[in-house]
């Protein structure tokens, strides 16, 4: 340092060495009394009693940590409330779910996590706050260039009086320091020629930043794009599991034969087994067939439904057990709603809602048979691109005629399908199917008709809402 030209370096301060903490403290006291303010002591361990000697004010750190911890308390509670007890969603939806009968939000259950969050945030505040207030990390410090100073982290004690101080005077300060017992005094100079970062540091830094930016840029780019290739499966074992899925061929054994002789991977339930809650013995409720109608026929039908084995042998033939029944005997069908079903406004509204979901695609919202699917299919059919039987209108004479098409039969149409219409029994629970029936009857009463429909409607002038009521009332009357 000393041989450096004065132009190339700037004096920062005078560094005095002491051999033990006590002489350091007394020197600091002297310096403070001599009016120096811009000074600092350096020691290998915290020397007690030095703070007042140098005139160090108590740090703000505890206050800072308190504020952060206090805030974290509310942040922690708020986070738990938002994620577990609220279901509104400014950005990410909360998820209010009941579990183990515990309340969504209760203090005792939320204390542990709140506590941990307070501790964690306060610890970070302490750690980062301490370094921040100390202006560390700071790697360029003229002190580190003084070889004597290396012992500040070992066994020696230093006092530096900086040139910044208004009382600083090169020679006078030196003699004062000598007087206060300094063992050695050295100039601390900042090298002005060397205050640029080496150029490779910048290069490496830039390169590093660039490389670090790549992954997030790629991720954001892909998030905003659509792609035709399948999604990446990093760990595939959940997506492709070692199991046979429904509707696939039976696994093949080593000898080339199917493991299951019927060649399917799915196993059928044991004959006669009934899934929990699906006994459905009440024929009126679940099949729309009168209770007292020929018990024999009924039970045969029940069995046909339950004992799938015999039917499934001739898989290719679609099962339409109703065809025959219908041709033979309309008297089997219920002409009124089954017990346990109360037809009121709410029930019909439920029916309307279900109808709009399940039926309107083909039959249209007004039941005219002009739903979107139907329109499109008819258009395709017109130029020979599809085969389609027009969805029937609910106002069609045969559909509407209570003697030909009683309530139970409509229920059956929904449950098992009819002719080219598919079954909806699997999708729609029985109560909802009855609600749809009620709504269909209500629709028929409204008189919203296709041009070709018959005119035999009463109450056509009434409003639709009241019609729904009137319609269902009428049902009860007819039944």
């Amino acid at each position, binding site marked *: 340092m000393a041989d450096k030209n004065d132009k190339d370096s700037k004096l920062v301060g005078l560094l005095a060495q002491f051999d033990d903490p006590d002489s350091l403290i007394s020197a600091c006291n002297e310096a403070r009394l001599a009016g120096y303010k811009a000074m600092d002591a350096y020691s290998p361990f915290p020397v007690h009693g030095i703070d007042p000697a140098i005139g160090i004010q108590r740090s703000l750190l505890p206050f800072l940590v308190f504020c952060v911890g206090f805030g974290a308390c509310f942040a922690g509670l708020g986070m738990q409330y938002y994620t577990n007890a609220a279901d509104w969603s400014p950005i990410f939806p909360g998820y209010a779910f009941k579990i183990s009968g515990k309340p969504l939000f209760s203090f005792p259950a939320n204390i542990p996590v709140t506590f941990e969050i307070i501790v964690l945030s306060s610890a970070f505040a302490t750690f980062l706050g301490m370094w921040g207030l100390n202006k560390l990390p700071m*790697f360029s410090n003229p002190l*580190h260039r003084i070889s004597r100073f290396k012992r500040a982290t070992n066994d020696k004690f230093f006092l530096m009086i900086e040139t910044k101080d208004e009382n600083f005077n090169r020679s006078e300060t030196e003699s004062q320091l000598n007087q206060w017992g300094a063992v050695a005094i050295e100039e601390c100079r900042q090298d002005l020629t060397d205050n640029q970062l080496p150029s490779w540091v910048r290069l490496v830094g830039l390169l590093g930043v660039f490389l670090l930016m790549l992954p997030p840029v790629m991720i954001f780019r892909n998030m905003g794009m659509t792609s035709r290739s399948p999604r990446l499966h990093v760990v595939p074992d959940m997506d492709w599991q070692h199991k046979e899925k429904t509707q696939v061929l039976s696994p093949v054994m080593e000898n080339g034969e199917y493991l299951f002789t019927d060649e399917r991977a799915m196993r059928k339930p044991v004959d006669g087994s009934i899934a929990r809650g699906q006994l459905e013995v009440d024929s009126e409720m679940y099949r729309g067939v009168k209770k007292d109608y020929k018990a024999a026929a009924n039970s045969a039908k029940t069995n046909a439904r339950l004992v799938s084995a015999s039917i499934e042998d001739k898989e290719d033939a679609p099962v339409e057990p109703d065809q025959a029944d219908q041709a033979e005997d309309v008297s089997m069908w219920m002409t009124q709603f089954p017990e346990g079903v109360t037809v009121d406004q709410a029930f019909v509204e439920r029916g309307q809602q279900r109808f709009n979901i399940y039926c309107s695609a083909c039959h249209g919202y007004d039941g005219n048979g002009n739903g979107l699917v139907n329109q499109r299919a008819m258009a395709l059919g017109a130029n020979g691109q599809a085969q389609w039987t027009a969805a029937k209108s609910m106002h069609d004479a045969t559909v509407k005629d209570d003697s030909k098409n009683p309530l139970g039969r409509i229920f059956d149409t929904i449950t098992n399908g009819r002719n080219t219409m598919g079954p909806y029994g699997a999708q729609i629970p029985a109560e909802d199917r009855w609600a749809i029936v009620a709504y269909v009857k209500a629709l028929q009463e409204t008189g919203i008709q296709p041009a070709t429909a018959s005119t035999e409607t009463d109450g056509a002038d009434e409003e639709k809402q009241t019609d729904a009521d009137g319609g269902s009332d009428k049902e009860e009357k007819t039944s």
Partner: protein
Amino acid sequence: MASVNPAIDIDNTNEEPGTRAPLVLGGLDYAGVTETVCAPWEAENPPKIWWLILAAALSLLLVLGGCVNHLLMKGVGVWGNNNPAYWGWPIVNFVFWVGIGHAGTLISAILFLFRQNWRTSINRAAEAMTIFAVVCAGLFPGIHIGRVWVFYWLFPIPTEHLAMWPNFRSPLLWDVFAVSTYATVSILFWYMGMVPDIATFRDRCKSKIGKIAYGILSLGWTGSARNWHRYEIAYTILAALATPLVLSVHTIVSFDFAVSQLPGWHTTIFPPYFVAGAIFSGFAAVVTLLVPARALYGLQNLITLRHLENMNKIIMATGMMVGTAYGIEFFIAWYSGVPNEQFAFINRAFGNFWWAYWIMVTCNVVIPQLFWFKWCRTTPWFMVIVCIFVNIGMWFERFVITITSLCRDFIPSSWAYFHPTGIDIMMLIGSFGLFTTLFLLFCRFLPVIAMAEVKSIMPHGDDHH
């Protein structure tokens, strides 16, 4: 400069009324402390035995890696966990390691707040041990969750597609927060405490890479009085934060059990009992590590017999607390009048896992009683043996709690016996490899003793603390 490594044990365990027993022996001055701590680090090559242990530890680590890989490929079925013992060895190992991981922060935080100056020469190593034990502990629940690659679902990270959050009312989630907070705060505390000593390494380092590495790690520390002022405040705050934290961690771990309904788990004594057990096993682990380390590195003047004796006293005290808890459990089971509880405890002691129970009682309650004899608690090789038994006992304590209760739940038809698989055993052994590897690397590259703190408690002209 004082001569380095006299490497003999000086007996400083006798109390002389009116005087403070010295904590640094051999007439070391400040430079002597630095020399003693830095000598093994500055040595050209670490001692042969270091390499030997490292080789052994690395092979165990390899075993662990192989097992974890096997587990990830095959699924958790490779463990002995069964129905009803859904929590098998992974949870036992987890609680065991977390327990060990309590001593470090306890020594550095609680003993700091109580102004126990003797902590200064052991706290650094104990904190390191804490962190490495928590690493081992974190491993087990980490791989126990099945789909390890979505481990981040444990944390409340907002996702667009999942639209779900962790259940903050579950003790298992409290555990996630407790252990990860504990690990983070311990690392902050450890690192912050180490910065002044890393600065010492920086100033003594000869190799270029070392200069850069220690230079960056020491953040440009100068030892300025203004820095020390804030540093000490920060250290006190961190200690004050870590004290309730360290008590909360094993409390919350015990909630994993205590909040459930299972007989033998559903008790309010668990939190204090777990914490006492954690301190017990943690101190035993510190002694087990430090006795060989001080011999190897010639640190007898800094980690003196008095330090070891103090720790042994704590081990004996906490051991008796744990023993009392075992007794109280039986009393409460009887006093509660609940037949299920009574059965659970009789089954522990005399059921088909009786052997585990009595290993536990022997190791944890009977063997530490040897420390009543001064010779036993001041003879290094002997106390290591006792401490190893203590940790065997503490492992069995967690085994007994977890397995006996699970194997005898409410429905007798689901009762079963638990058999660990080879993978279970190899993972437990392998985790010691992970722990030892990390500890050996720490001993080689970082300051094993908090030099600055030791110097600050050394007597000089005016001794006021």
